[in-house]
């Protein structure tokens, strides 16, 4: 599929911020399932770039003068293929992905959920179903920094929460699992186009699973970054000095150019 992406992130501060710093993981890389045809970032200041320990591309942008808005635009076109299990382990030893983090800490409830899988389908399908039953898709119920166990206790969440509970459960079962951020071409428009899903190392390959949509990722999915949790992989991470209250909006449009 050929997809066109337009992703706008907008911050508005109630008071002027004195300076701010943004770490952007807004640039997809070529892999066996996606080929970037063209891509560009429109940013309010010059940014430097690098590749982090997970192999993610990032940009670092510093705004040094007083400002009360920041607008970040990422756009481009990417050719996607059907995703199949990927036998390339990546730059890190896969056992790194057995680790729990602050956002994906093991808890009694997640352990119970991990061990309760039974029924039809693969392990990932069963686990995904359990997660979705326990916490139906509910925008606004959680925050970006809500840890997996809290989201599960709330019984609600978005793709970020589904993915974090899911990978925590996988790690409890001894399966290396990672958090993936990216975009989704959505035909029913129920979920945001900015998306997250999981990858689990099973039988010597990374198997993707999109928990919120209860299926394996496919050519509708475009990958941006991966890591141990949301914080490692999220598209935009920022800090600022001053600024007061913040209004943050993000909108990602993904369109099908041709099949």
């Amino acid at each position, binding site marked *: 599929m050929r997809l066109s992406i337009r992703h706008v992130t907008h911050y508005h501060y109630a008071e002027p911020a004195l300076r701010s710093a943004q770490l952007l993981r807004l640039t997809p890389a070529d892999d066996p399932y996606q080929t970037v045809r063209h891509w560009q970032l429109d940013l309010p200041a010059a940014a430097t770039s*690098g590749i982090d*320990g997970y192999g993610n591309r*990032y940009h*670092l942008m510093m705004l040094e003068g007083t400002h009360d808005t920041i607008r970040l635009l990422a756009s481009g076109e990417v050719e996607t293929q059907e995703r199949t299990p990927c036998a390339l382990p990546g730059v890190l030893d896969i*056992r790194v992905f057995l*680790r729990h983090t602050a956002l994906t800490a093991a808890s009694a409830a997640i352990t119970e959920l991990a061990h309760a899988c039974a029924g039809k389908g693969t392990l990932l399908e069963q686990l995904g179903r359990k997660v979705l039953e326990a916490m139906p898709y509910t925008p606004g119920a959680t925050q970006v920094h809500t840890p997996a166990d809290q989201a599960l206790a709330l019984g609600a969440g978005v793709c970020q929460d589904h993915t974090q509970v899911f990978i925590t459960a996988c790690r409890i079962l001894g399966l290396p699992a990672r958090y993936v951020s990216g975009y989704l071409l959505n035909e029913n428009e129920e979920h945001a186009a900015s998306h997250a899903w999981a990858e689990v190392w099973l039988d010597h390959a990374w198997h993707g699973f999109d928990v919120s949509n209860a299926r394996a990722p496919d050519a509708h999915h475009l990958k941006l970054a991966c890591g141990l949790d949301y914080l*490692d992989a999220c598209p935009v991470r920022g*800090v600022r000095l001053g600024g007061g209250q913040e209004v943050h909006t993000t909108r990602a449009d993904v369109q099908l150019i041709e099949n």
Partner: protein
Amino acid sequence: MHALTLPEPGHHDEMLLSSGAVRSHYQHFANWLQAQPPEMLARKREEANQLFHRVGITFAVYGDDSGAERLIPFDTIPRVIPAAEWRQLEAGLAQRVRALNAFLDDIYHDHQIIKAGRIPAEQVFANAQYQPLMQGISLPDGIWAHITGVDLIRHADGSYYVLEDNLRVPSGVSYMLENRKMMMRLFPELFARHAIAPVDHYPTLLLATLRQASRQENPTVVVLTPGQHNSAYFEHAFLAQQMGVELVEGRDLFVRDDHVYMRTTAGHKRIDVIYRRIDDAFLDPLAFRPDSMLGVPGLMHAYRQGNVVLTNAIGTGVADDKSIYPYVPEMIRFYLGEEPILHNVETFQCRNPSELDHVLANLDKLVVKEVHGAGGYGMLVGPAASRAEIEDFRARLLATPANYIAQPTLCLSSCPTFVESGIAPRHIDLRPFVLSSGRETTMVAGGLTRVALKEGSLVVNSSQGGGTKDTWVLED
């Protein structure tokens, strides 16, 4: 006359032979001591207390929310190490630290020791201290731990054992320096009678090590502190002042165009080496804990680009983790092709079911420690514990066995120490500070001797009632 008494049987005393006779390297000191009237020594101790208060060398107790600062008690009877014994220790410490640096460089690059099957991969990579963001970063000369504090004890058999390696932000060196200054001030005549190796050049050696850590010709070095509320702030300020470099907080630094700069009254100055006394998690809110106000946004990027050196490097904690400790002798054999000079303490890893069984059956005899614990917290000393404490630990071990290791209860050596009733043997340990650069692995002769002031206690941590002593390494 001062009565010198032996410790309980089964402990090595630094000054006395088991016959009660004075060891030859303590003979001069013991003669001097016996000639001093008790009132004079009491007056000197009081003088030392007042001077330390004036210098401001205090510490805040970890886990004590009152924020009260305390003075670490200083004992005026030194710990004395003969020259030949120190040479052996020095060789062993340098060997150990070289192997630990080689291990760190390996596990963030090619993983050879793991491929060779000498350390289980999961122990390293699934360890919370392994820092994925450091994978593939090449550091100048492959040095990760520029400053290492190694905790040693002397066992009943008279040999030194390494208790733990501190490769993150080891502290305590300011006490080594201040204790020496204090002893020289109180008892100058002792230094005329003994040939004692100096320690006062430590800041010069440290600065040389920090400068060599950079690839720059004439690097700018700073000390980065979390601020004056940190328990070791005194030491941060002290070392910066002694080295003649700036003491900065995170807000004094910023990243621009892949480099780190310091704000100064005269504009911006580029920084090449940051001797950071802030834990990894707080260094950069864009890479680690997002709520950290102590770090520098973008620092990880400048570091990754090779434009600034952090001492110590990020991610060194994986090598001093208690679950990795049992493998240090294997690292020495693997990387250096040498046999370890210093002993490791026998360690049971509760993650292994057979070792867990052994530990559970011997809780009253063993010391059980949390793998990620520090400062003597989260620890069970079996022989000194109540039934209830032992049962509490049994439950914890069964719940999360991988979080614990266990070791035999060590018989820390003792050293005569001033206590209320006079002079009595008290248990001690030793923390020398090893400096590593591409050129050499070196240290000043000595270290920080900590003493457990409570009778029979084996816990020397200052936060739990420990004191310090001057450490004398004798010269031939």
